């Protein structure tokens, strides 16, 4: 554990020793705020239109059920945030392994008591902790809807868990991609490519058999994430995200063996 603790400290120091972490955090906070306030503005305009139609001031009775803060603001923001995370998290994960390979410091790490498994575990742990921090920052604005939108804390917690697991899955995909290259650019692009491909397969329904379509839906990120966004915590979905993280860790671990024995 001493070795793992040392690695975690070093990873945090490296992460916050470069501007990428601060830029990513700022970018996500800004994008979330922009999306949130834009949807809020449109929502307020719709409310204003209804209030003028009734001519007697603001009459909530005249507002249809589907015009509510949840459907008009919170849910679309969460949808966009899911995609925003796919666009931004690979910017963090791209350096994690690729930079070590490019510098040759992975060799230095392995010359210590750190085993390849510990290196992978430590790097995933730190990245997941950073992603959790990103989630908190991302969630600040939407969470303000809790009062106005009439959302329960449980519902909001479900959304937060879903968002965090979604972030972990993207981070895991990005880390696995980073483990196979010494180019940060290739790591980022391949991370984006895999995550965007996994995001949604509904476009393929017209081209594949029903069975394949069901399979594609089962491995897609969007339906799982969407389920959490609706406030549903399904164990299947939790297993799905945990499974992605474990598979990605195994893939990253295998990259070390490939370098040791491969040609």
């Amino acid at each position: 554990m001493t070795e793992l603790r040392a690695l975690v400290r070093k990873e945090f120091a490296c992460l916050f020793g470069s501007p990428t972490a601060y830029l990513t955090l700022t970018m996500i906070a800004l994008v979330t705020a922009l999306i949130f306030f834009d949807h809020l503005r449109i929502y307020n305009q719709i409310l204003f239109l209804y209030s003028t139609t009734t001519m007697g001031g603001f009459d909530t009775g005249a507002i249809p059920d589907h015009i509510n803060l949840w459907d008009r603001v919170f849910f679309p923001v969460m949808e966009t945030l899911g995609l925003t995370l796919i666009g931004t998290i690979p910017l963090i994960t791209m350096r994690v392994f690729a930079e070590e390979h490019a510098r040759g410091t992975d060799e230095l790490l392995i010359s210590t008591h750190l085993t390849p498994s510990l290196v992978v575990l430590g790097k995933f742990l730190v990245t997941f902790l950073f992603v959790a921090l990103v989630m908190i920052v991302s969630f600040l604005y939407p969470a303000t809807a809790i009062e106005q939108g009439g959302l329960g804390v449980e519902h909001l917690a479900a959304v937060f868990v879903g968002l965090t697991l979604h972030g972990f899955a993207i981070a895991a995909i990005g880390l696995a991609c980073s483990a196979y290259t010494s180019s940060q650019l290739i790591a980022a692009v391949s991370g984006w490519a895999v995550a965007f491909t996994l995001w949604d397969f509904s476009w393929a329904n017209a081209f594949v058999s029903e069975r394949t379509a069901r399979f594609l839906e089962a491995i897609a990120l969007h339906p799982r994430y969407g389920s959490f966004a609706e406030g549903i915590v399904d164990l299947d979905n939790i297993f799905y995200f945990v499974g992605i993280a474990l598979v990605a860790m195994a893939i990253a671990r295998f990259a070390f063996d490939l370098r040791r024995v491969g040609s």
Partner: protein
Amino acid sequence: MNAQGQPGSDAGTAAGVGIEARDLTRRFGPHVALDRLSLQVPPNETFGLMGANGAGKTTFIRLVTGYLLPSEGSVTVGGFSPAANPREVKARLGYVMETSRLYPELRVQGFLRFMAGARGLSGGAVSASVDRVIEQFQLADVAKRLIGNLSKGFEQRVSLAQAFLHDPPLVIVDEPTGGLDPVQRGDVRAVLHELQGDRTVLLCTHDMDEARALTSNVAILNDGRLVAHGTTHDVLDRGDPLALFRPHGETAA
């Protein structure tokens, strides 16, 4: 020696740590980087591993540290196999890589603390060992500076310092003066000279002056094969030692 990682015959457990390679082969696809190398690095001496670029020196080191696994043959450190008993080997081994293989965004002290932790030291032992190497390698003035802002000479001192944190009986030093100016080279050689004594140092270099100044025995690799092995004087100061470095079939101009 045995490949299962149990202490073998080479002197290494009580009276210092040696390295023993038997028919060690490492292939990268069709390329044979190391070809049936059998070599014994005796305990408690500074041993030079020489050869031109691409001769197989770094591959040999990577097999000793356990970063690479052999295609055939075996290597042991103090009787332990790096593949089967990595922890035993790592406890006995300090590794100085070529320059610039550090973390430029970390401060010197922070980096040394990390390396001490990664080598299994904890609590007060971390501070004690970091303070010791900072003093030993004269890093006090730069201890709080970012590694990325150091000169190459100081970078190499930091690299040397991390290898001595756990006071290992065997230190492997790969091209310690590569890319350094003559003054920095002199500084690093002086440091290496001071470190000689009750430990084994495997010095990997293609600089003959460095080998003459620091080593007692050398081995020369050429194209992955051992082409010369003996005392530094015998190997480097008789005949045409440069011929040993030239690729097979190539003659002096």
